[in-house]
């Protein structure tokens, strides 16, 4: 508890230092709950992740890795639980000199340093392919060794069919997925490798095409552009079946939206990302009955999710903070992150065609926010203030309405004495 309080009260520089240490620790997962406490701040501070050999190793198939500790229910994505047996297998079978060289190259570099990731990856990916092929050739023998070490070898065996083909394309897959000079790569640019990767295998290896397309659709910052490439391939090569993978990804994203929330704040953010990715994909394929139906269904789901997100991730915790009369900066940041996530869900839903649900949900939120703002105006110093509520209202309802709410609740903040703020 004391560690949690210290972490919450840490300055930006202290937080950067602590996260850097935690990030490099081999047993980072044990303190994941502590990191969760300050995750909104970490996101805001854009703390760079350190580059490790393991992080570079997974890049070729990272697009297929499921987020968080969830177990994917679709047939495309892989659970993160596959990583420990994979890392153990690779460490046992890869040339130790190659691993040592990779670690040396990764030392003191950042995970968003694309040239460094590529350099580390080039040392590792061929050895990883050899290790996985050995597992493929002798599954029982290696599985026994992994099981002895306490790993789920069966899971690795199940995922092998997805990881190995992408790992064989290691450098090309990494080049397609990693940003260049910190800027995400638009797949439609002439220099982007996405199109050649997909066209190169669509006829000779449809299974590989499915894996590559899915990895790019799940990972790319431009899922609409990837969808356009797939659509062009379907049209020009007269192979409509290739759109099947787009439908599979869209269905998987739809399922993500409907999955119950484990952690309200983080869940809202992941839902928002899934919502935007889903509508980005289906909007490119407007006019195709299968995808139009998906869009209609998505709009209904997004309407519901927006209502739930606003109610459970913004309004309810806000009401609780106002009642408690105490609000720390991280709790407020988490509320703002959830409100932004709700707006992303709303924008995605509106693009997909829903409007009335959002109006109703926003009308309900408006009433509650007004009441809470009045309560906050009468509340004790140190609690959540009108400013914080106004900021949430601004995100959800827009600055005109937020300003109107401030004025309606009798607040004249610009003229308020600074001492009030200092006292809080």
């Amino acid at each position, binding site marked *: 508890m004391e560690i949690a309080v210290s972490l919450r009260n840490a300055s930006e520089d202290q937080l950067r230092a602590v996260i850097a240490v935690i990030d490099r620790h081999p047993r980072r997962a044990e303190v994941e709950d502590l990191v969760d406490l300050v995750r909104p701040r970490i996101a805001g501070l854009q703390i760079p992740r350190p580059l490790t050999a393991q992080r570079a190793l997974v890049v070729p198939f990272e697009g297929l890795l499921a987020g968080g500790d969830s177990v994917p229910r679709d047939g495309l994505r892989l659970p993160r639980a596959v990583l420990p047996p994979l890392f153990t297998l690779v460490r046992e079978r890869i040339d130790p000199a190659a691993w040592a060289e990779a670690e040396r190259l990764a030392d003191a570099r950042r995970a968003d340093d694309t040239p460094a990731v590529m350099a580390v990856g080039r040392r590792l990916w061929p050895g990883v392919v050899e290790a996985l092929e050995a597992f493929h050739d002798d599954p029982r023998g290696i599985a026994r060794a992994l099981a002895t070490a306490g790993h789920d070898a069966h899971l690795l065996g199940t995922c092998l069919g997805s990881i190995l083909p992408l790992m064989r394309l290691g450098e090309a897959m990494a080049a397609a997925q990693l940003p260049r000079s910190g800027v995400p790569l638009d797949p439609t640019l002439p220099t982007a490798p996405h199109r050649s990767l997909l066209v190169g295998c669509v006829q000779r290896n449809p299974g590989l095409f499915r894996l590559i397309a899915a990895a790019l659709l799940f990972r790319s910052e431009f899922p609409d552009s990837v969808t356009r490439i797939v659509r062009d391939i379907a049209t020009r090569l007269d192979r409509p079946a290739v759109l099947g993978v787009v439908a599979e990804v869209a269905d998987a994203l739809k399922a993500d939206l409907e999955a119950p929330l484990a952690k309200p704040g983080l869940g809202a953010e992941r839902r928002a990302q899934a919502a935007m990715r889903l509508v980005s994909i289906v909007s490119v394929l407007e006019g195709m009955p299968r995808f139009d139906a998906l869009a209609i269904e998505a709009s209904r789901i997004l309407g519901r999710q927006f209502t739930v997100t606003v109610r459970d991730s913004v309004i309810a915790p806000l009401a609780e903070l106002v009642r408690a009369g105490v609000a720390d900066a991280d709790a407020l940041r988490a509320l703002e992150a959830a409100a932004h996530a709700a*707006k992303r869900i709303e924008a995605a839903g509106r693009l997909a065609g829903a409007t009335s649900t959002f109006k109703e949900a926003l009308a309900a939120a408006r009433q509650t926010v007004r009441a809470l703002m009045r309560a906050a105006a009468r509340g004790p110093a140190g609690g959540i203030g009108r400013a914080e509520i106004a900021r949430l209202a601004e995100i959800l309802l827009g600055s005109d309405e937020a300003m109107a709410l401030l004025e309606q609740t009798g607040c004249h903040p610009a003229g*308020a004495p600074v001492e009030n703020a200092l006292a809080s």
Partner: protein
Amino acid sequence: MPNISPALAPPRALQTDFQPATFLERGASVPFTSPLLQQARIRLGASGMREIVLRNPAGGPGWYVGPWAGVTEMVRVTVHDRLVYKRIEETGAIGPLEIRRAARAVSAEGYGGQAAKAAAIAAIDAEEREWRSAYAALFGTLLGQAGLAGSDLIAKAHSRRELIDLAPSLLAPIAPRLGLAPEAIAETLEELATVLAGVGGNADQPAQTQRDLAATQRLIAEVRRLAGEDTRADPDAVRAILDVGEVTVTLAEDALRRARAEIARPQALVMAWAENRSAVRARLTRAEWLLDGWATLVSLWMTAGNGAPGSQRHVLPEIHLLLPMLPREVTGGTVQPAALPCHARTTVRGAEWLAEFADADAIARNERALARTIA
């Protein structure tokens, strides 16, 4: 829209060759967080009415100069910006320090986000300490140079009120020599301390302006280093940042040195203030005017420094675009402002719905800059 007679309102104009003659004509930057108002400046126009100066909002070349009144109705602006606008309206703030105070008051309430709130509260606290330090330094030197006792009493005073209360009685012996009533001298000390709080008398404990200067020097040094290491850095941006930055820093150092020299002669300073306070204020705040607007650039640079490798190279054109222009009183009119890059926002066809989120990201980044600007 505010109630303003069309006859009185200054005309709106797009000036493609805007080169202010003085700092006053350049105006003071207002730390708005709305993307379209970024680095907007407020100034007193020829008619005595306040005007806003901002980059051509359409993204083309030139500067838009128009009435300050109703600026928050012109584009979609944040609640924070509306309240800063209101605060400026109420206080009549026009100089960099006053604008910064107005923004701090709004941020201290929490309207600029949690980081800006913490920064504002700390800055208000620091400013009070710096005011007491400046007041005590002026007061103590004034007494010491007149051979009067009282320094020990000044050192024991723990609040603004205690310091102010000491002044009339301790200053009474030198009042006739200065030709001013003790109360008038005390009042002058208060006003001077307000102006000099940012200057600071002790280089070991840097005050506001010294801190701004140091941050600007760091920015320039880092841009120079990047340009030396990375040939892909935009040469036009690098040249403009280094040219304007180096002149700014050199002049600000000189202005700070002169201001500190004046603090060392408080008798002359008090008499000059009584004679022509606006001229003295202009001299003492020259460094503040020179550095005005650079805190935002420092923040952009530092934020990019936390991003992926290459991010600082990518932010150079934006810093170039936002560079505070040097007035002709500094350049002598011999330096032609470099052509600025186009800053029109690009929107991908079919992705127009994402523009709203680009704005939200820009506001979040501007709030980070706000926390630095008001610190």
